[in-house]
């Protein structure tokens, strides 16, 4: 059993400890009965109860979820269209510049994106609030979606679309009935990525929001400045739980699908010999 040598076990332990110790500590302390974050005073779910009664946090959570839903959906539509154009348009003058401009926000510092959006909103006299946050999040999440979708489209057999046209589809029908269902997994994972990005964005939201719309990360950040409260621990534990369940569910679903497909293909090979 060389695989479990002393060296391997140690590096594995340190690696995981480095990654997960802070989160484990946070979850443990969220069940602390004491009001002081660093002093353990026995097990309690008290802070979870208080969190649910805290209107500020609940409002912020609701704002965040709405922003994430709208912006990720909008970003998915725009990002998918951009990806389709980039992959399908072929070569035209300025193509490299154009595709570079789609991906530039990926590497642009968030502070700059936030600041420029703020200037734009002030310039056109748009009242800052939930709407401007949605716009801002759409802007930066869109390029992530287009990266995910275009990497799927790059391996997409264009003959499938031609076959759809050949069988009587208009170009739009071909996209709706053939392309979209086939690239759906990539579109969905683009949507999930955009949703997560929007959920935990602090910088851009701080620049573009107004007093009426405080998102959860802003709320957490501002209350931290007044000292870490056990409520924050409870809230963070909930977020970790939600994300963990989502990731595990997604990977289980993918794995099950792969297994079923492999089994079906084997069955087909047996039948046809």
């Amino acid at each position, binding site marked *: 059993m060389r695989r479990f040598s002393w060296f391997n076990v140690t590096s594995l332990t340190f690696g995981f400890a480095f990654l997960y110790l802070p989160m484990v500590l946070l979850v443990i302390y969220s069940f602390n009965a004491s009001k002081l974050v660093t002093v353990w005073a026995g097990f309690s779910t008290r802070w979870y109860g208080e969190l649910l009664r805290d209107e500020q946090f609940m409002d912020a959570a609701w704002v965040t979820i709405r922003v994430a839903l709208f912006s990720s959906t909008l970003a998915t539509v725009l990002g998918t269209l951009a990806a389709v154009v980039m992959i399908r348009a072929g070569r035209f003058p300025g193509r490299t510049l154009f595709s570079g401009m789609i991906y530039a926000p990926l590497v642009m510092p968030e502070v700059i994106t936030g600041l420029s959006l703020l200037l734009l909103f002030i310039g056109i006299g748009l009242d800052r609030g939930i709407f401007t946050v949605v716009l801002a999040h759409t802007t930066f999440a869109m390029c992530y979606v287009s990266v995910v979708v275009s990497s799927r489209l790059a391996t997409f*057999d264009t*003959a*499938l679309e*031609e*076959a*759809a*046209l*050949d*069988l*009587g*589809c*208009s170009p739009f*029908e071909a996209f709706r*009935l*053939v392309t979209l*269902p*086939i690239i759906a997994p990539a579109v969905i994972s683009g949507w999930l990525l955009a949703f997560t990005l929007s959920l935990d964005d602090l910088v851009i939201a701080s620049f573009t929001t107004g007093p009426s719309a405080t998102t959860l990360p802003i709320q957490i950040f501002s209350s931290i400045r007044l000292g870490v409260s056990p409520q924050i621990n409870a809230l963070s534990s909930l977020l970790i739980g939600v994300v963990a369940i989502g990731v595990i569910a997604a990977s289980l679903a993918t794995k099950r699908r792969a297994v079923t*497909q492999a089994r*079906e*293909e084997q*069955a*087909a*090979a047996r039948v*046809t010999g």
Partner: protein
Amino acid sequence: MTTAPADRPRPGPAVFAPWDEPDAVPLIQFKNVTKRFGDFTAIDDLTLDIYTREFFALLGPSGCGKTTMMRMLAGFETPTEGKILLSGQDIAPIPPNQRAVNMMFQSYALFPHLSVWENIAFGLKREGKDKDTIRARVDEMLRLTRLEKFASRKPHQISGGQRQRVALARSLAKAPKLLLLDEPLGALDKKLREETQFELMDIQEKTGTTFVIVTHDQEEAMTVASRVAVMDEGKLIQVATPPVIYEQPNSVYVADFIGDVTIFEGTVRKDGEHYRLDWAEGQPPLRVRSPASLRDGQTAYVAIRPEKVEIHHNRPDDHNVLRGKVVDIGYLGNLSTYHVELPGGRMIRAQNFNTERDTRQPFTWEDEVWVNWTETCGVLLER
């Protein structure tokens, strides 16, 4: 023009040869079609007629323009110059989804998210046919391609040969005037490919659809097609029935592309009813009968197929007799190919059918032999 399916190319009074009938109306007409991609000319001033119920093969090496011709018929490319007529109508302005033309793709392009049944029904649903009509038509197609058992399977759950049949059923479902097949059998192994060739011919006869097939496999083209067009660099080199292409090639290119051939280059001179080709110093000239009219002293070629070359131990009393040495033997079971080296290093291939059950070969390596062929067996070519 409409004839019963049984009238297709068979020996007898009703031979299918509309291209020889002066008043036959072609289904497809290419009129001086040129297609350029930037600086590259894919199709070069090409004129061609294809008739209803034909099984027409476009044959050529990759990059010769055969796929471009097919894509222009399907509507995925438009000609740069010239016109393509389908039933007398210019099809340039008609988008692919409104053409009475369907295509079977090289990759099959089956929709992976739909079942076999839904794949075949796809085109019919787009036409807005009612449910019962669609059901009846799809079931008919499943029967035709023997896929009834697999109707509810997804494309990844069936074998390569079955996928090929689904692709064929799907492209035939809308009963197109013209079916285009892009290297339809390329992905199948040899045995399955041969079976499927006959299946394709059978289906073509049953449905009476005009087929245009693109292939680089000359055997496939010869087997399935009523006429073959041999292409090179965007031009048609020869358009004719398979036997004419094989026995009366119009150029060295066609002779060489189709089947096995030995080609002698030399200067030609007329001698009574036949020509003589002087091809090497100290060698007897080759005698060949030809309807062509060539100038004396002109450079010309004689092409000779290996199965028409006889091989002997003793000198036969005939024309076109050459002495040589066996350097290679290819034993294929039904026949053997001998590579015979002539004095001066020239090689000629001779084929013998193994009609006796004899495991000893009549000729072996290093044997001194005589080869010959009659004066009607060689083909005299100008270029």
